């Protein structure tokens, strides 16, 4: 059973990493949203497996809640925003795609460098997966920095949070049940507020492009 869980962990950890890389490559907001939903689904399964391994009802509940908030609720909410605003294409990036991919490669190399070696040395069995989770966190952060589009930045922050969850699961940093529920509640509120903010940006500037917010300086 443990072996199967470890093997599934590998698959799901890789899925989370790959989705964060692909979020940089896709151009449509709906594709980026789908990638986020896939990533969140992988995180929910990871939590469910954690529940199986530790036979913890609390973790099952957290997994179910994660699925409901990050996959079902976020999916419906984001689809509505994209459909209402009719914004399929994301505004451009600061760096072109080859340079973006070069930076992604650099971030992955950084995680495998001597800087993170002490962290990875603590978990020799899962080192590869932990480095992928860390790389996923940095790549998501880079998505927030590199994209002009407010919607892409919103997805980037949520993807960053998914990376943190995967990292904490892999290194065994699960929190108490109350704290986990609290974090998920925060995510729910974040989705509400960020979506409202993104909608406001759109209604005021007619675009998700944050470059246009420079007019605020005047």
């Amino acid at each position, binding site marked *: 059973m443990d*072996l199967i869980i470890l*093997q599934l962990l590998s698959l799901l950890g890789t899925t989370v990493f790959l989705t964060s890389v692909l979020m940089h*490559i896709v151009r449509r907001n709906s594709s980026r949203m789908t990638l986020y939903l896939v990533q969140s689904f992988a995180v929910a399964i990871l939590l469910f497996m954690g529940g199986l391994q530790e036979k913890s009802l609390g973790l099952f509940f957290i997994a179910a809640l994660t699925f409901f908030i990050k996959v079902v609720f976020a999916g419906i909410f984001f689809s509505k925003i994209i459909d209402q605003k009719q914004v399929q294409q994301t505004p451009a990036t600061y760096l072109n*795609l080859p340079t973006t*991919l070069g930076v992604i*490669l650099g971030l992955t190399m950084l995680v495998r460098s001597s800087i993170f070696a002490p962290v990875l040395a603590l978990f020799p069995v899962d080192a*590869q997966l932990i480095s*992928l989770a860390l790389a996923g966190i940095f790549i998501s952060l880079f998505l927030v920095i590199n994209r002009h589009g407010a919607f892409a930045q919103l997805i980037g922050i949520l993807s960053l949070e998914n990376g943190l969850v995967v990292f904490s699961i892999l290194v065994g940093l699960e929190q108490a049940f109350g704290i986990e529920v609290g974090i998920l509640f925060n995510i729910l509120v974040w989705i509400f507020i960020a979506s409202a903010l993104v909608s406001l940006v759109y209604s005021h500037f007619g675009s998700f492009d944050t470059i246009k917010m420079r007019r605020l300086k005047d």
Partner: protein
Amino acid sequence: MEILIFIIKILFVPLISPFCIGVIRKIKAFMQNREGASLFQPYRDLLKLFHKDEVISPTASWIFLFTPYLLFTITLVISLGLPFLSAGNNLFGINDFLVFIYLLVLGSFFLSLAGIDTGSSFGGFGSSREMTIVALTEGGLLFAMLPIVLLTKTTNISLMASLLATLPLLQFAPIIIAFIAFFIALLAENSRIPFDNPATHLELTMVHEAMILEYSGKRLALIEWASFNKLLIFIILGVNLFFPWGLNSGSLYLDILFASIFLFIKILFLSGVVALIESTVAKLRFFRLPDLLFTSFILGVIALFLVTI
């Protein structure tokens, strides 16, 4: 036993490849709410072309006449080195992954030469586009396979597959990333959507079809058959090298039967994935193709880093 495996290997790819194309076309038709042609239509198309006369341009040189035979032979030679039914028989060194890649490049090189040989403008731009794509694909293809070479410490494709099958799934994270890189290269090398549309003859978009526009009759049949074989070779390599479960030890007839059935199921699955992508993704503009191919290359390098350090 070895002779039997040799015969099966050399016959498997050319006999199954038209069926594989038929499956892809059938799934695409299903996705478009059409009934579609029979699964065996590609066999009938090949038979029809083999019975047709040829029209050869008077300006065509030996390259134009020789290329279809070379392309078909290359696919047969490569199929002998594929990782199925036997583990590690390195016949004339064709099991080496570098030999595999450079035999493919040799085929693309001659096809491009044949495209410009007759002086047709269509062939010229087709060859030019093909060379651009091939030059950018080879890096991704090489780096997609290098992580497995480093993990298994061999360049023999069959041995790579059988050694990889013994690794625990926990170490498969870089292999999955490398497979995505390989899959992008698969689509590019086989002129599939989003790189090229095999069903179109629009001068603005065609790549592979532009190069073979001057061919007819038996030589066209051979080129078409070779391109079917090439796709199946990539599919077999994808399913058996990156997910090497169900390979046989080659010791029992029952093992061979089981491995063949398992391989066939895996082929159908990956063909379905190719058809699904072709039905849901639009063909990319030519100037966006390098981005996708560079993605393949970077994913290959990431997989390599995860394996090495």
